[in-house]
């Protein structure tokens, strides 16, 4: 069976030849590209914050510092602290880090000699919790059983990180809002230019009985086709850029940096950016045309 010939969409207004058409496509591509990168940044920060949360929340660190001679030994106080910790409700496990472990942790600052037995090294106990722990009472019991013991529940550290991640989120949102605002202004400009260029045709259609919505639909369709092309181009470019950054970041072994890998969830969210851009452009085009045509009788 022969397929019917494809018929190009017919516009009563010759908008495709307008000089603003190409400009709007390129501008949309650029804006979608920047918005997609901002969104990706926000997503990566979210992942990073979630990793910090899961890594640090639900855990405590107890530090026992060396004391002057005459006190109980470091090992004795560590054992006492472990006993207190393991008998505390909400504590799942308490493990003392070995001197080698501590040496490895300090190696970036003190070098290979960090594990030198002559250095007065504190002892660290990694505590994993599986329920609420009364940290005030636990700190008091630890201080009593093992003088020189301090406890860090990561609350301050986590709060700082969460604040930082929140600020990055807000910045990404602000960038996207600014890009959206600039996009709206560009569409308003392009549509107004189109209305001015085709004033005669618009007036003719109006006199022939075209409703404002009929004229607005022509602009909407035109703007949709331009922004869709630009939006898809910008999205492809953004995904390619992120893949490139991910490839470059894969060589870095910095665990605090966010993982720059694009998964299906990220792709789905990034694909929303051109869709939102198109919808925003269509609504703006409609609003601009309807507002402008109000001046006709």
């Amino acid at each position, binding site marked *: 069976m022969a397929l019917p010939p494809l018929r190009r969409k017919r516009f009563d207004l010759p908008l495709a030849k307008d000089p603003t058409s190409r400009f709007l496509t390129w501008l949309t591509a650029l804006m979608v590209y920047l918005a997609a990168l901002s969104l990706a940044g926000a997503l990566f920060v979210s992942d990073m914050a979630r990793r910090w949360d899961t890594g640090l929340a639900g855990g405590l660190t107890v530090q026992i510092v060396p004391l002057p001679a005459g006190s109980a030994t470091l090992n004795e106080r560590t054992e006492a602290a472990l006993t207190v910790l393991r008998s505390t409700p909400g504590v799942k496990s308490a493990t003392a880090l070995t001197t080698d472990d501590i040496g490895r942790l300090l190696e970036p600052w003190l070098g290979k000699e960090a594990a030198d037995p002559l250095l007065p090294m504190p002892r660290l106990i990694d505590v994993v919790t599986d329920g609420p722990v009364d940290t005030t009472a636990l700190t008091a019991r630890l201080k009593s059983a093992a003088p020189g013991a301090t406890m860090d529940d990561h609350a301050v550290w986590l709060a700082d990180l969460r604040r930082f991640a929140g600020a990055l989120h807000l910045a990404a949102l602000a960038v996207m809002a600014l890009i959206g605002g600039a996009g709206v202004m560009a569409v308003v400009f392009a549509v107004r230019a189109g209305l001015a260029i085709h004033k005669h045709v618009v007036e003719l259609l109006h006199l*022939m*009985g075209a409703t404002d919505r009929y004229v607005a639909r022509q602009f909407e369709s035109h703007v949709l086709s331009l922004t869709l092309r630009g939006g898809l181009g910008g999205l492809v470019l953004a995904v390619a850029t992120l893949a490139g950054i991910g490839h470059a970041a894969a060589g870095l072994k910095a665990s605090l940096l966010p993982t720059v890998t694009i998964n299906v969830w990220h792709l789905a969210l990034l694909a929303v950016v051109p869709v939102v851009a198109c919808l925003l452009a269509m609504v703006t085009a409609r609003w601009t045309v309807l507002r402008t045509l109000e001046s006709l009788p």
Partner: protein
Amino acid sequence: MRYGTGPEVLRDVSFTLPPGSFHFMTGASGAGKSSLLKLMYLALRPSRGLITLFGRDMARLTRADLPELRRQIGVVFQDFSLLDHLSALDNVALPLRMSGAGEAEVVEHCTEILRWVGLGNHLNALPSTLSGGQQQRVAIARSVINRPRLLLADEPTGNVDDGIGMRLLYLFEEMHKLGATVVIATHNEALIRRFNHPRLHLENGRLHVMPAQSAHWA
């Protein structure tokens, strides 16, 4: 009727067009013919006075009511006002598409009417490739495609020779016989004499309605 703060271009104009009537509109250049036609096809609103169209008081209608009324008015503009980027068929199809007609119906009716005006072989021709007379026929086909209740033409025979002018007038006569109210602004005395219809004569912004039997005055 006045433009902005300028002088009145039409004043004390009062007339009634009975449904299904045919009138010529005459008057020297600048007498107000185009302004009166614009008032009739709702391109302008009067500075003062009352217009009743199809039994509806224009002053009481909102802006949203006007498109539907405009679609009941066919207009042949002096400069044809064809859209250069659209084919003859697509130009004629504009009123139907605005009314939401189906594409098959649009193509069928437009093809039929373009054949009727002798342009059956130019359906897909762009206006720029058509002669002045052919463009005028496209404009007329467009004005009547929707079977308007009121058909207005501003110098429709101004750019064509007498033979084509006569043929165009016969088209308007056909629409008149189908029930349309027709008003044709023209300077062509030969046509006015040939088609004996009443005149709306404008002089210095005032209107004189002249019945058909006295239309032979100079």
